């Protein structure tokens, strides 16, 4: 016996059919971030509060620039996927789509600004 409603059967709805990719993306980025988080905390923690010149020298070093770029970049993608689940759970109707689009744009914007700033500091 099928529990699906007539309308859903006609529209081909029912089980999600997709979502494995989303879960897998979260898994991959979380493993990457498990490595990057301690590295970034050590790198950023050691320079926050230092002078302007010291910050320039710090991020001119490839290691610190790359750790920050990877952590903030992968972090933004992980955030984009994570906040989507939050929105899907609590926001309904058109506002849901609007919120997902808005937060996706915020995530990519933050990603781009972070890479731009680090590129200017490093090069």
């Amino acid at each position, binding site marked *: 016996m*099928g*529990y*699906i*409603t*007539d*309308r859903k059967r006609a529209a081909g709805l029912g089980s999600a059919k997709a979502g494995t990719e989303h879960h897998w993306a979260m*898994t991959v980025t*979380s*493993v990457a*971030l*498990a490595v990057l*988080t301690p590295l970034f*905390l*050590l790198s*950023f*923690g*050691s320079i*926050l*509060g230092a002078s*302007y010149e010291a*910050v*320039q020298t710090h*991020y001119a070093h490839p290691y610190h620039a790359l750790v*920050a770029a990877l952590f*903030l970049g992968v*972090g*933004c993608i992980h*955030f984009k996927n*994570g*906040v989507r689940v*939050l929105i899907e759970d609590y926001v309904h109707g058109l506002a849901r789509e609007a919120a997902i689009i808005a937060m996706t744009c*915020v995530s990519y914007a*933050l990603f781009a*600004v*972070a890479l*731009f*700033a*680090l590129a*200017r*500091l490093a090069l």
Partner: protein
Amino acid sequence: MADVNRGNRPLSPHLTIYRPQWTSVTSILTRITGNAILVSGILIVWWLLSAATSEAAFNRANWVLTSWLGDLVMLLSVWGLWYHFLAGLRHLYWDTGRGLDLPTAEKLAYGCVGGSVVLTLLTIVIV
């Protein structure tokens, strides 16, 4: 006629009816810390952008991040990040099908809360 009972189906009780437990509270905290970290993310990227712009811009952002309010936000962020880090590792462990029984799940919950406090204190000592 699958739609006969529409609107009158039994519903499972929602969050507010349950007694808070270690497992449920630590699950909700994972979501709160993960999403709240956006605030610190924006602050840090602003700080980096200002460092790449000019000394005056840097001094402004640096003043905000190292003020008492900035220190408080950064301290909470470090705890939130470590908490989300441990809760994420817990998820990866659960994803392998292990540790899903209640005694283990509760131990993992204690570990996430206790471990995040320990790691936060360690971070303060080291950096």
